[in-house]
């Protein structure tokens, strides 16, 4: 697994994708820090970009990488290697190298602007943490989609739909449910529903950490009042980790039974 991981990272280091991704975060983060009065506002704006963009790029890149290396995966599977080691290695290699591009893209401008006060460090690491979690979650979902669909068009279509659903449609459905059951106590439903969307969870983690109640949103406030800030944080991080493990387990199970 380590070898495959190493070579996937090596391949990604040679690809312009990694650099473009790094450059995007670098430019965005530098611009926001330059124009914002204080770093925590820049962090909030960056969060909104990250929770939308990390899932989209990870899902699409993984699906694209899988389809373009389909024949090479076949060749590797014919080597004396365990199937699950090969796919785990590739998955961690891809999600890991995306996470690195993203981390450096955010971190370097903060270093350049000398904004590493202890409060900023905590907020920035939380921001990087949720970005990395989202990258791993959506890379695993990407593998799941790509392994299910031999047809590239269907694969890309499903990947984009999953992103659209989690990033946009889910919020609409969420609000619709709350309005529909307005006459009933909906707190627990709302709390339960927010566990089902990793993007929501990422937002909650960040808001609980930043402790900006005005930006917390309904579910963030619920988490805060229900569990308290710290317990809420632990629970939402744990739920996000389950969101990494569950799709990873599913795609590995799919791969074990798949005909290549």
């Amino acid at each position, binding site marked *: 697994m380590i070898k495959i991981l190493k070579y996937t990272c090596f391949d990604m280091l040679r690809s312009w994708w990694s650099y473009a991704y790094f450059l995007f975060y670098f430019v965005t983060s530098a611009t926001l820090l330059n124009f914002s009065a204080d770093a925590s506002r820049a962090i909030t704006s960056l969060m909104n970009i990250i929770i939308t963009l990390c899932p989209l790029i990870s899902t699409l890149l993984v699906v694209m990488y899988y389809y373009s290396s389909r024949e090479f995966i076949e060749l590797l599977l014919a080597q004396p290697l365990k199937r699950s080691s090969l796919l785990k290695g590739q998955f961690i290699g891809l999600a890991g190298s995306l996470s690195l591009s993203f981390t450096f893209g955010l971190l370097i401008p903060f270093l350049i602007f000398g904004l590493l006060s202890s409060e900023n460090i905590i907020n920035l690491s939380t921001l990087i943490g949720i970005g990395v979690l989202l990258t791993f979650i959506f890379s695993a979902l990407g593998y799941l989609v790509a392994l299910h669909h031999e047809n590239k068009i269907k694969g890309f279509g499903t990947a984009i739909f999953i992103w659209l659903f989690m990033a946009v449609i889910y919020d609409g459905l969420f609000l619709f449910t709350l309005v529909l059951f307005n006459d009933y106590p909906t707190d627990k439903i709302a709390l339960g529903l927010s566990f089902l969307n990793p993007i929501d969870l990422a937002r909650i983690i960040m808001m609980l950490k930043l402790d900006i109640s005005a930006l917390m949103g309904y579910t963030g406030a619920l988490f805060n009042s229900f569990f308290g800030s710290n317990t809420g944080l632990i629970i939402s991080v744990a739920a996000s980790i389950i969101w990494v493990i569950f799709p990873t387990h599913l795609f590995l199970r799919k791969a074990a039974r798949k*005909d290549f």
Partner: protein
Amino acid sequence: MIEFINLNKSFSKNLVLDNLNLNVSEGKISAVLGPNGSGKSTIIKCLLGLVLPDSGQILFDRQPIRNTWQYREKIDYLPQIARFPENLAISELIKMITDIRQQQGDSEALIELFELSPFMHKKIRHLSGGTRQKVNILLTFMFNNPVIILDEPSSGLDPVAIIRLKDLIHRERDNGKTILFTSHIMSLVEDLADEIIFLLEGKVYFQGSKEEILQFSDKPNLENAIASIISGDIPDPLKKKHLANYL
């Protein structure tokens, strides 16, 4: 060494292998032939563990291969489509596969044989289809393992490279290796194969030497013999006799 026992495989409702039984002759070059969809690629992929059979088993060195991967240390495989990570150079790719296989490979002689030295440090994406196939061949033959599986080995190669490939395959056979290959080019089959395994509708329809298949079909050459079997143009008594022998 390699034995397929009562192998069945369907893709959705399409039955590809129908209770197939086959014993691959050791130390020979065997050509797997058959019309499109007869199961040639499927048996190769089943042997490599890429496709999982619905039932039946495959024995490698008398051991069932299901859920194991260590037996692949003894197999060198040349896939039909040569696609490698585009951002790697040939030399890096050789290093990578050697590292993954954890086997000592000898690439120098093959680099010279296929005149690949000028391309060694070029990225794969800048190589032509024929050169990629040469790289594919190099990665297959650089290791010294007892079984070699080749899927359409001559595709995209120029005549000089084809002649060198044939010599290479013969040399490996003379070294005692078992070689299994598929090809649509009958002249290559004629030059290489010691044994022909003919698949039809997911079963082994014929297994024997070139001379036997010519006799079996009553045709002057292999191309016509194969065409007549595929089109069903075989005199009935012969067919019955051979079916009784081989099925």
